[in-house]
């Protein structure tokens, strides 16, 4: 069965703060309802905690770090799930139940299965 990454984009805030307890409860509920298709996932701290890494001159070169996310956007990547579903319709159905899609957007991307790419 194909797998899909559901990338959640919404407000760039600290989801651990008490005022987001309700949202976290909704995520908890989603985790239970969707347990059969969830293969992994994580919530991320704010983009203010991000460090972007580049190696200058390719492999083995100087490691260059910058403070902040790779791309500054209004809505930030705040978390993701990995789903295993029969098809895109099913993946979209689950994505629409992620709380982040109600006040932001969820990008559904098929995951490459290198096992079946050979030959």
């Amino acid at each position: 069965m194909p797998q899909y990454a559901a990338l959640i984009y919404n407000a760039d805030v600290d989801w651990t703060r008490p005022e987001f307890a309700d949202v976290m409860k909704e995520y908890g509920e989603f985790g239970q309802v969707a347990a059969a298709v969830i293969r992994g996932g994580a919530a991320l701290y704010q983009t203010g905690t991000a460090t972007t890494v580049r190696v200058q001159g390719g492999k083995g070169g100087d490691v260059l770090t910058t403070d902040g996310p790779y791309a500054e956007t209004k809505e930030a990547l705040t978390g993701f799930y990995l789903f295993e579903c029969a098809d895109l319709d099913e993946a979209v159905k689950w994505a629409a139940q992620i709380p982040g899609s109600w006040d932001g957007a969820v990008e559904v991307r098929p995951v490459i299965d290198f096992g079946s790419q050979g030959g």
Partner: protein
Amino acid sequence: MTDGPARAVLVRLVRDEGRRVLATLVRQLGDLPLAEDAVQDAVLRALETWPRDGVPEQPRAWLTLTARRRAIDLLRREAVRPGKEALAVVPEDPPPPEIVRDDLLRLIFVCCHPALAHETQVALALRTLCGLSVAEVGQALLVPEETMAKRLTRARQKIAKAAIPYRVPDDHELPDRLRGVLATVYLLFTEGYDPVGEVRPTLVEEAVRLTRLLRELMPGEASVLGLLALELLTDSRREARRDTAGLPVLLADQDRSRWRRDLIEEGVLLVGEGLRRSPDRPDPYVVQAAIAACHALAPTWADTDWAAVVSWYDVLVEVEDTPVVRLNRAAALAERDGPAAGLAAVDAVAGLERYPLRHAARAELLGRLGDHAAAHAAYDAALALPQDPTQAAQLRRRRDRATGPTGG
């Protein structure tokens, strides 16, 4: 090989049968690009050999066998599946009609899947559902062939990689998904039947053909009947809608003897059937077709049953409330109740300040009320907005005719 009507009939037969063969082969192979390559090959062979050797007794069986042979060749070449397994995947005989029907519906719902952009759906409809070549799709949609080829390849990749399902939607999602399919087909039609630009007959004809196919596949669907009626009634005016200079002619001024009676007759019957099939909640396409039928049946603009037209617009506002629908309702109201009532109704429509035809409608009604200076200003307001040059030329002509080039 000769061109001409015989050739056109042959091409049509090969395309219609080819689409059925393709729909089945996609299901059997689970691979749209592979099935398309195989059927394309069979279609080319048919176009090459049938004019010389005659059309086989069972064209579909011939195409099925040829496409199957080609698919097995391609599978072997890719070495993904051993030959024997490939042979087992693709049966030799075409399936019975009810299976072909489901296969065709599945193919239609894949090509019009909401996860694909509208322009992609339109391109896929022409290529995959209508069987046009990539070059022909590009020509029809005014996109260079190379760009079109890339767009189609991207679309097929998305269908495969994102696993867009090859199935007919469940009952509970069918109304929504069917609306999406019809919107795509209607987009195809309106692209071809641009009210101001050139008519592109290929698009109009393929859209009508696809709608007829949908009607065959889903005979009881009011929205399909409505869309077909709307297309036929609109297309019945094709010959009358432009003057010798190529400018669009308003419905009021069209030479009604040039309207196609056969299309009007069929369209009117379809409206009746569509209304019978949707007694509880009228379908927007059926209602739009009913309005088109009122015009089609009127001997002249003045003799139009404006009370009926306004009533249909009232129904349309109920089921599809958009500013443009309200503007058209206001224009019909002006014919029923006079220009002052019409002008008040036009002014009550919000959200169309940047829509040239709203200002043109005001100009027309102001002119009828005798306020030529205001009419001239309203035409100028319409012309100040960005729009198609043909429409602008027509508006300038209306302005000059109504108020003189220098105004009131």
